[in-house]
């Protein structure tokens, strides 16, 4: 409705068309503007490809790191199953009471299996492995205690549960010292935490730079269309109407950039796959990288489109306002 002339129709809203047709027209207008923005990108292929590539590659790096961290977490979750508790028995424990302890422990529901290593066997093994075999011969008595290796049942393999089991085992009167072999795992988790934070940090910085790059590209677009924007403002275009094609440009940059990022991640992981397989085979493990699922693709596309839109939004808000007919 006209602000100055009461009753004067202004545009489709006031002309005699139904709500459905009005909505339909709005959709048509959006599709038309969206496609024409895509057409503009197509007409300047070099500039567009460069912008899209910057966006795509900037998303590729954090995405690849994220997938690698996720996979490392998955493998280490597998290793955690093997966590073992070593119980060093008191010197005065004799063979009979050791056997009693073993029998008792086997009945515990928390425990999957127990292995007894007598002190003599442990000494022999130590002599072989340490290279101190000759020195050992001078020892008057075997300094090593009997050892019981306890493998927790499946439900008790998490660090916290294993820790509780360890405390309980220490209460046994034959046990001198108990040791839970998860320190290295905790260190790995610590490293993974750092890696995750690095991913966030690198991602954050790259995303900010992407927003700035898109913003600047859209700014140049706006400046190159200054005359057109002036004419549109003169004949009564609202800011929103003028913004729309640029926002669509941002959207297309984002969508295409996201697709490039997805392709790049696939290629990188495929390229790294052989070295990862070689590494995994050292541990006699079958291992396949996962993470390139449909939802990962959607996340990357969503992220990329968001970055494109945010960049163009910041730019149009600032620069379209500056262009006023004089």
């Amino acid at each position, binding site marked *: 409705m006209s*602000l*100055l002339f009461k009753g004067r129709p202004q*545009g489709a809203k006031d002309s005699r068309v139904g709500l459905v047709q009005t909505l339909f027209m709005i959709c048509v207008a959006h599709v038309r503007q969206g496609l024409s923005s895509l057409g503009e990108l197509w007409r300047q292929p070099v500039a567009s490809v460069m912008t899209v590539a910057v966006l795509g590659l900037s998303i590729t790096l954090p995405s690849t790191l994220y997938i690698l961290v996720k996979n490392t977490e998955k493998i280490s979750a597998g290793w955690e199953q093997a966590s073992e508790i070593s119980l060093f028995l008191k010197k005065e424990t004799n063979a009979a009471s050791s056997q009693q302890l073993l029998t008792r422990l086997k009945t515990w529901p928390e425990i999957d299996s127990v292995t007894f290593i007598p002190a003599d066997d442990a000494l022999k093994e130590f002599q072989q492995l340490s290279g101190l075999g000759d020195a050992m011969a001078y020892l008057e008595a075997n300094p090593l205690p009997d050892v019981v290796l306890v493998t927790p049942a499946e439900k008790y393999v998490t660090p916290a549960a294993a820790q509780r089991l360890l405390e309980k085992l220490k209460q046994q009167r034959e046990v001198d010292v108990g040791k839970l072999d998860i320190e290295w795992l905790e260190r790995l988790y610590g490293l993974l935490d750092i890696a995750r934070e690095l991913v966030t940090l690198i991602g954050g910085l790259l995303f900010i730079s992407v927003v700035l790059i898109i913003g600047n590209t859209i700014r140049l677009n706006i400046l190159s269309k200054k005359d057109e924007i002036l*004419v*549109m403002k003169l004949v009564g275009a609202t800011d929103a109407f003028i913004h729309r094609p640029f926002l669509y440009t941002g959207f297309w940059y984002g969508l295409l950039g996201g697709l490039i990022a997805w392709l790049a991640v696939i290629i990188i992981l495929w390229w790294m796959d052989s070295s990862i397989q070689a590494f995994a085979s050292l541990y006699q493990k079958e291992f396949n990288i996962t993470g390139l699922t449909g939802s990962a693709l959607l996340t990357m596309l969503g992220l990329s489109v968001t970055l494109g839109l945010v960049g163009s939004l910041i730019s149009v808000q600032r620069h379209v306002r500056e262009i006023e007919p004089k």
Partner: protein
Amino acid sequence: MIKFEQVSKTYPGGQRALSKVNFHVAPGEMAFLTGHSGAGKSTLLKLISIMERPTVGRVLINGHDLNVIKRRQIAYIRRDIGMIFQSHQLLMDKSVFDNVALPLIIEGYTHKETSRRVHAALDMVGLRAKARDLPIMLSGGEQQRVGIARAVVNKPPLLLADEPTGNLDPKLSMEIVRLFEDFNQAGVSVLIATHDLGLIARMRYRTLTLKDGCMITDGLDDGSQESYS
């Protein structure tokens, strides 16, 4: 229709473009605005289309004070005002049809309605056959007529023209002014800024004359007084 009440405009830097201008153009009236370069004609038109705001005083269109119009409402105000410029302000990479259709697309008319109205407007200015041409292929007079078609395509109640005949020879100028007369007879208020005194003399319409930002004559110009300069 257009009313100026004690309007002064001083640009940043102290340059005084208009001082205490009063006048009223009635609905359905056609008037010329004249004065030599720098007298304030363009500034006066810019105050009506809210490209500039008055320093002092009020500009009213149809009784509405433009001072209370907010920035985001300006676009809607401009839809009620058909504007024609000496430099045409056409989009050179778009066809004549697309140029004239722009105000309708902005207002969201259906494709069918847009097409009907654009062809009607081009008919009025006699350019129907050139709808598919680019403005660059047209002569100066034809380009001006495309600008006029664009200004009237959404049937605004008010038409402003800034030196519409500035680059045209007398015969073409007359054709353009005849077009404005046609719209005026259809009920549109028309205000034409021009320094083409010969043209004004032949037309015998109300003439507002500006000199150094002041309104010095307001009345029918019979052509005898060429004294403002």
